[in-house]
């Protein structure tokens, strides 16, 4: 019986031959049959390879992971079709994760890497310009703010990540046109780059002067996590709005750190120790060691994290939310990636993010030609980096801890916020905006007073509004 199986299988599958060949490098160079793969089959095969490889990485079977990555590299290319592109970034992320188990090699391989902040900002700007998501987020956020601020004479808006003046420029225009006349407007922008804030201040001040509305920009040069609330300078009598666009998930970090402490095996005790070292020294070595631990023992870690102990709530996000809450905001509008990339196990995260970024890459495909340099940059520097962070990083370094709207809603509720249903008009504006894109792939739906934007059936981003509740 086995023989029968074997014959039918082997005769018909060139893929069986392939793995052998990859074992003996140089035995046969470019594999002919790869060229003959139909794009669809190639895509399916890539998915399969990614899953295989991810399993190998998760179980620490690096040799096999290496083989899988080798195969992927033969099929994937960052300027091919969506599956090829996405496979490139996922394989890179997996490789990055493996590489981090050898801190020395990892550091050395990155020692000359240049990361220009301006480039990164530019890439975000492109993402804002070419894809509708940021715009929808801006429009809905602004509408919620304008509605909440109706009749208010002193309006203070805090932008947790002030990179894009367009949003506030539009808000200034909205406010200047409101029937009861414009309010005194103050915008507090938080960003770690002084230049970015100066830029924003310039644009906004100019706009406010043009429309003749009283305006003040309050720049806070800081990382979000090191924020000092005193800097907000919230005054009594002013109505406060907070806008957070894809920022809050990075506060979930502590959540996971706590989880790691919960398992009681000696192994994880060591992990805890390492974490303490990190916390105390901020030492890179310690971090790398920790990463080492994480990757080397990831299967154990994964299984451990599914224990009931791991449901401890995160201290960090709670602290931050209660800080925001204490400011008594009239409205807080939150945009987040609507997908669970904060799973305990690596495989969970990979599968979820494969769907999520698959959809995002499809959006790219619909928006820009394959040869587009902008598209390549966005995919590499924005989406690719997120993928890498989700897959390769652990602990405090893993920032892209996207979670679903339900979880956020619970969290906000616990933190003393009440949901503010988004208005019909906000929905309408968002819909219109999406209709403007010549793709029917974009979907928008209302979910308990919140907006979820997606691609086909896959939810991608959620926008929700909240207010201070006693």
């Amino acid at each position, binding site marked *: 019986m086995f023989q029968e199986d074997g014959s039918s299988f082997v005769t*018909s599958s060139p893929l069986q031959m392939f793995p052998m060949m990859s074992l003996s490098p140089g035995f046969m160079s470019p594999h002919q049959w790869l060229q003959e793969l139909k794009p669809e089959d190639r*895509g399916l095969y890539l998915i399969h390879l990614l899953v295989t490889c991810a399993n190998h990485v998760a179980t620490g079977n690096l040799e096999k992971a290496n083989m899988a990555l080798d195969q992927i590299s033969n099929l994937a290319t960052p300027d091919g079709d969506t599956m090829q592109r996405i496979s490139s970034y996922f394989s890179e992320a997996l490789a990055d994760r493996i590489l981090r188990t050898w801190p020395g090699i990892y550091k050395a391989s990155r020692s000359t890497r240049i990361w220009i902040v301006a480039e990164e900002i530019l890439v975000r700007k492109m993402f804002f310009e070419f894809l509708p998501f940021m715009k929808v987020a801006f429009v809905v956020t602004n509408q919620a703010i304008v509605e909440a601020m109706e009749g208010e004479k002193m309006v203070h808006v805090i932008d947790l990540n002030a990179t894009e003046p367009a949003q506030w420029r539009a808000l200034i225009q909205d406010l200047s046109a409101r029937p009861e006349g414009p309010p005194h407007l103050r915008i507090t922008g938080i960003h770690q780059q002084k230049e970015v804030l100066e830029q924003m201040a310039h644009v906004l001040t100019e706009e406010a002067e043009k429309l003749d509305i009283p305006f003040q920009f309050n720049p806070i040069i800081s990382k979000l996590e090191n924020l000092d609330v005193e800097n907000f300078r919230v005054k009594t009598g002013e109505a406060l709005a907070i806008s957070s666009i894809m920022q809050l998930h990075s506060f979930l970090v502590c959540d996971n750190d706590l989880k790691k402490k919960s398992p009681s095996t000696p192994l994880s005790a060591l992990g805890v120790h390492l974490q303490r070292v990190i916390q105390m020294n901020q030492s890179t070595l310690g971090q790398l060691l920790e990463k080492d631990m994480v990757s080397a023992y990831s299967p154990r870690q994964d*299984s451990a994290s599914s224990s009931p102990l791991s449901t401890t709530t995160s201290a960090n996000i709670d602290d931050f939310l209660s800080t925001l809450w204490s400011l008594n905001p009239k409205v807080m509008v939150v945009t987040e990636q609507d997908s669970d990339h904060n799973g305990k196990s690596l495989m969970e995260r990979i599968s979820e993010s494969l769907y999520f970024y698959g959809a995002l890459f499809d959006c790219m495909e619909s928006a820009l030609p394959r040869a587009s340099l902008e598209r390549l940059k966005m995919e590499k520097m924005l989406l690719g980096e997120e993928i890498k962070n989700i897959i390769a990083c652990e602990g405090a370094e893993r920032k892209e801890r996207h979670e679903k709207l339900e979880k956020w809603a619970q969290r906000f509720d616990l933190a003393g916020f009440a949901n503010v249903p988004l208005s*019909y008009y906000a929905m309408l504006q968002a819909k219109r905006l999406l209709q403007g894109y010549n793709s029917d792939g974009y979907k928008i739906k209302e979910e308990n007073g919140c907006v979820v934007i997606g691609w086909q059936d896959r939810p991608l981003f959620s926008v929700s509004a909240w207010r201070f509740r006693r």
Partner: protein
Amino acid sequence: MNNQPRKSNLRSLHIKTTVSIEEDRQDEGSRVAENPSGIASDCSLSCITVQALHQISATRQAKLKLPSPSTDTQIMSGDEFSIANVFPQEPETNPNSKSNANPTVKKKRLPGNPDPDAQVIALSPTTLMATNRFICEICNKGFRRDQNLQLHRRGHNLPWKLKQRANKDQIIKKVYICPEKTCVHHDPSRALGDLTGIKKHFSRKHGEKKWKCEKCAKKYAVQSDWKAHSKTCGTREYKCDCGTLFSRKDSFITHRAFCDAMAEESARSVITVSANNLNFRNDNLNSTLMNPNFPHGFNVSTGISQVGAVFKSDYNGEISGNSLVGDQQKPRLSLWLDHEPNSHQLNFIDVNCNSNLFIPSSSTGLPDMPKTTSSMGNYTLSHRQGLMEEEVIGKGSTMDHSLASLYSDNQKHQSNSSASMSATALLQKAAQMGSTKSNPAFFGNAFGMMNSSSSSASSSPNAISLSQKRSELHQVFGKQPENLSGKARDSSMGGSNLMQTSATQSQAILVNLHGAEHSLTRDFLGVGGEGSNPFLPQQLAEFVSMSSAMGLSQFTRNH
């Protein structure tokens, strides 16, 4: 609908642009059509105060949109002129243009003069907010004044009684001031001409807005305002030629104002960039012109004339010239909010302009900005250039693309639609392929089921049988772990084990192709901890099915 600013616009038009009565009439006409109740309520109030019964019919006419509105408004505008003289500096008008209709009477008596004898009345907020005390016993409708109830009762054919004034000449004009001390209408010289007017003014300006529109965010203090708004809210669509749609006229008008401004600005900065960019702008212009959606549609003229009213001085000339034609008009790219990428080409151009707006271009010059910023400016420029190239590439690549597809059609199977090649579709397909088996999922609930054997989508009978066999194999293995270890030994001969995975060491099943015993490479993809072995044999089956005849029969023969 936002009555108030509209009316003040009108007022200013009446006062300042006597020439444009034609336009006004149109405007007024459209207003009547749009908002019959608003006008009707104004008129009926005035009628009642004047007690000129025959005018009621005129009101009805207006209500029913009978043909007279334009003449009415003409009279009104004439009158308004005189009112403007009476209260020369009044910029913000009494929203209930009672005074507008009243003057017919007043003017007869005191042409062009403020009434020195007018009795100034100050009412308390409580009185002003007082609800309707006089109730109709038939329909329960409430009235603030008995006289109005009497008029109403006539409609039910009930006995009614109206007070008659003994002598019409003795009518003493009353004006009402707002009790709010900070209000401009607190000053007797700015008093409002009728009771309802002051009441509405008071609740609009100083009262609580308790009437909230269900559809949009607007709130009203006066119920009739709310009603009037509710009737029209969301029923219309206003489309700017930049492509943005609006459900409400006022937001549309606001937008238009800025849209113009932005277009100007973008035009300015685009010009500074390069000749190439100008070309693009032309392209864009053409495409805009060819775009059948370009005209505003029915509401163009009103929209624009109102914009004109808001921005009295600057836009008037331009607007009258441009309104419908649009040939001189710059493409409205302005706000990112408005950008409607109808094509890639448009997209790029929009972006060009946007980046001009968002980042001061280096030509605009920001001497006081730090160096980094100017380097950012450079980035923008290069970015823009990149875009321009991209634009060219984009055009080229569409050709390439089609060429390529032709090519590959010739070459080989390009049977797949592009849709099925999207990552989303592929992932779905991959998940479906495994969805029939009940293995604990590794890929959510769907993906992990790739173990399935029965759902082979392939047309190859080989593949189907293969996968069935494989699942049997799987079962065998599953039931006989001791067997597995035996097989695992063979694995050390190390062939291509790429496809092989083990969830844990103990589960390792390595069946070697080179191994004499088995020709199958088995694959148990375990998820850490869960001990499940979901894998994708189904996919392998797929690959099998699509494979060419490069079989490994030589290996099989070994068996």
